[in-house]
């Protein structure tokens, strides 16, 4: 079952303003019966002031569709038409204490019913600009139509692109197979072939929570010529120097203790040390070092350095 807020349940079990308003002079019918949600909003508008005197709804739909309709009617009563038009679907969702991502479209339907009703009152033609597709990314509630349109409009060709433009796929990443499928189709349509990114390729700024084991090393940039030990340490120092302002901004700092082959021992100090961000910070430092050095290295907190260094 859905994780509905108490307010959603309250508005579903005890809907406000159910039924058509008597003497309505504005009607908005929106929704899609094939999707299972449709709403008729009726308003009684005072002609001189354009104040909404009364609002009523009739809804064919699920619990959150009924709750969103009920919330909408409560929100618009007493407002002028222009005031009412500023209500966004997020406002409706907020009024209800939030909606599950799969149900955000119920709040969209509410806002559209309002627009349609006001257009009807003003004798205008209301054009629906909203096209809804199957939900692909559940973390950020992004649907297929949105992803497809964005890929088309911007000639996108990678999952990272799609995430950057739409946020889709930027969370748990379970929808990447679905996004790849859409990308493949859209790219095929413009005569290109989708090429997946390298195995283990990481997005800029996204770090692993734990340092990967050497076997799981990401595919790294081609080695940048052999560095002497001194050059190598200097490069490492430079990288740390570059990261220092960001760390300091969070009240922390990082200090290089030793370099032993692939292991780079550091001390995290201040706010970075010990907190649960430490592992992420280390991962971020490691990622940057790998990119700059062009080789796999492992950043280890000095405190975790084995006591018997030899032969470890």
């Amino acid at each position, binding site marked *: 079952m859905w994780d509905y807020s108490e307010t959603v349940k309250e508005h579903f079990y005890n809907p406000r303003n*159910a039924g058509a308003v008597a003497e309505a002079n504005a009607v908005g019918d929106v929704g899609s019966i094939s999707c299972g949600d449709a*709403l008729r909003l009726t308003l009684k508008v005072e002609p001189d002031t354009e104040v909404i005197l009364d609002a009523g709804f009739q809804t064919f739909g699920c619990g959150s569709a009924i709750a969103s309709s009920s919330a909408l009617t409560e929100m618009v009563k007493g407002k002028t038409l222009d005031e009412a038009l500023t209500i966004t679907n997020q406002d409706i969702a907020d009024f209800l204490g939030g909606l599950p991502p799969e149900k955000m479209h119920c709040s969209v339907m509410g806002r559209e019913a309002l627009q349609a009703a006001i257009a009807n009152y003003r004798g205008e033609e209301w054009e629906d600009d909203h096209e809804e597709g199957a939900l692909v990314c559940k973390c950020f509630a992004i649907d297929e139509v949105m992803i497809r349109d964005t890929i088309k409009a911007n000639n996108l060709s990678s999952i990272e692109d799609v995430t950057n433009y739409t946020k889709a796929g930027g969370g748990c990443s379970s929808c990447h197979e679905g996004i790849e499928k859409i990308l493949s189709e859209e790219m095929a349509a413009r005569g290109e072939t989708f090429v997946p990114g390298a195995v283990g390729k990481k997005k800029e700024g996204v770090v692993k929570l734990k340092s990967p084991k050497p076997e799981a090393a990401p595919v790294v940039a081609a080695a940048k010529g052999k560095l002497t030990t001194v050059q190598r340490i200097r490069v490492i120092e430079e990288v740390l120097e570059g990261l220092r302002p960001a760390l300091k901004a969070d009240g922390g700092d990082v200090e290089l203790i030793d370099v032993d082959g692939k292991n780079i021992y550091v001390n995290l100090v201040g706010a970075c040390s010990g907190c649960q961000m430490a592992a992420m910070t280390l991962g971020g430092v490691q990622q940057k070092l790998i990119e700059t050095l062009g080789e796999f290295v492992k950043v280890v907190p000095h405190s975790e350095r084995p006591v018997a260094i030899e032969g470890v």
Partner: protein
Amino acid sequence: MADIYLDNNATTMVDPDVVAAVMPFFSEQFGNPSSLHNFGNKVGFALKQARQSVQNLLGAEHESEIIFTSCGTESDSTAILSALKAYPERKEIITTVVEHPAILNLCDNLASEGYTVHKLKVDSKGRLDLDEYARLLSDKVAVVSVMWANNESGTLFPVEKMAEMAEAADVLFHTDAVQAVGKIPMNLQDTSIHMLSLSGHKLHAPKGVGVLYLKRGVRFRPLLRGGHQERGRRAGTENTIGIVGLGKACELALQHMEYENTTVAALRDRLQAGILAAVPHAFVTGDPSNRLPNTLNIAFEYIEGEAILLLLNKQGIAASSGSACTSGSLEPSHVMKAMGIPYTAAHGTVRFSLSRYNTAEEIERVIEAVPPIVAQLRKLSPYWGANGPIENPEQAFAPVYA
């Protein structure tokens, strides 16, 4: 008042006798059935017993035809992928439009990899056209997969006949019998069914255990290779708790088979009659004359299923729906769509699925509860007027949407 569980096609309560039977396998009976010592040996013996109980319920000829898996879905995938590997030159699959996603999503994925998937259509009562089926059978088909009973409507399919037709055409036949096993009698040794899937949690065993029945001699390629468990056909240390539980559950299912098909069926019929007598504009979906004894699927027109379920749930009644909203998808159930049920009814379908634990009192309570809930939601519906559906509902209310 205790809650009423009428969602047994989704999953079932683990029978208390099953719970008792599995308890020792959480504690002293922890051995690995493959081990030689006493710890493992006893567990190995328990698995053998469980295998025989499954064999008995299915009417399988040999105990070695039973392969334990982790769920119905795994059994389905194993069966279909095995057939494709065993007959690599055959690139076609025949199935139906009303299968469970465990089959349909796999087949859609295979289609994207170049296989041709034929999905048999159904009529308004969910029945297949066997002439269409006969025309599709050929030596290009690697496997036919047809469910024994549909999970939403309970409609039964003539799988025994279809298996014979497949065998005559020299084609492998698999059936997803996840909803049928334990509810209707079967005797697989008298059939041409080559492979069959079942799932423990639909017949009062724990979740996470299933079976693939594999008729002796049928070509097979394992999904999981590794150790010698299940005679090398499904590697991985056995889920002893699940398997022992499933064995006990199969014994109990066999004992209750008559009860299921008389008493449970009568309760279901009473529920159907009671609701239809009190609620106008409601109808049974599927083929009422040929369905599982425990399943009743009713379409309540002009209202939406999730809303019905939420109000039922408020009164402690558990059922399920084919509406889009309950699954978070954009379309109502593919089963209802396939039967041509209009959207104004398909979104309002509610499935009541009973078990041997339901009582006549519970059924009466549900018959009392449903009509006011339907009336309450219809009052909110734009398709409903003062005394019934508005005239020409589809024209009178035609919302704008892309």
